[in-house]
């Protein structure tokens, strides 16, 4: 089992972390805990599973791509 975990923008710099795979997780929140070694979640943290916005309680499965990032600021 493998789940891809990605980090973007200020979050990536603050955590000083690279994208990597984790072996397993049941929810997006658990994936965060495993991938960041239990780093504190920023209040404004957003999560996407397979390119769709999700919740930290959302379930994840083998092969999923999970992304964590701060509020978006495009346009």
């Amino acid at each position, binding site marked *: 089992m493998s789940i891809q975990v990605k980090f*973007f*923008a200020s979050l990536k710099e603050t955590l000083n972390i690279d994208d990597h795979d984790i072996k397993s997780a049941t929810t997006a929140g658990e994936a965060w805990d495993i991938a960041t070694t239990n780093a504190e979640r920023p209040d404004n943290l957003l999560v996407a599973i397979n390119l769709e916005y999700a919740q930290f309680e959302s379930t994840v499965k083998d092969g999923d791509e999970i992304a964590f*990032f701060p*509020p*978006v*600021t*495009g*346009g």
Partner: protein
Amino acid sequence: MATYILEQSFNPWESISEHQKSTTLHNQFGATATFIGTMRDFNDNETVSAMMLEHYPAMTQHYLEKLINEAKKKWDLLDILIIHRVGNIEPGDPIMLIACWSSHRRASLEACSWLIEELKHRAPFWKKETRINGEYWVEKNTDGL
């Protein structure tokens, strides 16, 4: 309908013209509504000398296509063009172009306005500004007023 994420500067007026020529819209549209977002050289009363735009490529593409599909369901549109810059940007450079074509003005005007706001709130782009004292991530979008 087309979306482009560009790492190079672009001329929005030429992009609109080229897109119109490349489609089969000739003599069908009665209205074209456009929005062009341009990089300013200030923010929060500080000088901004440069900006870097990061994005999440796969999700960005997915969301731009999703927004276009949602707009097509909401309004009777003939065509939509969205272009967004990423990478290193200088003051005065266009950042984003949204153009909507419709038979009558209301659809294109409303869709263009809706697309701007939805893109700013949902598409995964992030701005990092270079100011006099260093580089800073933009924490949230302005309210547009």
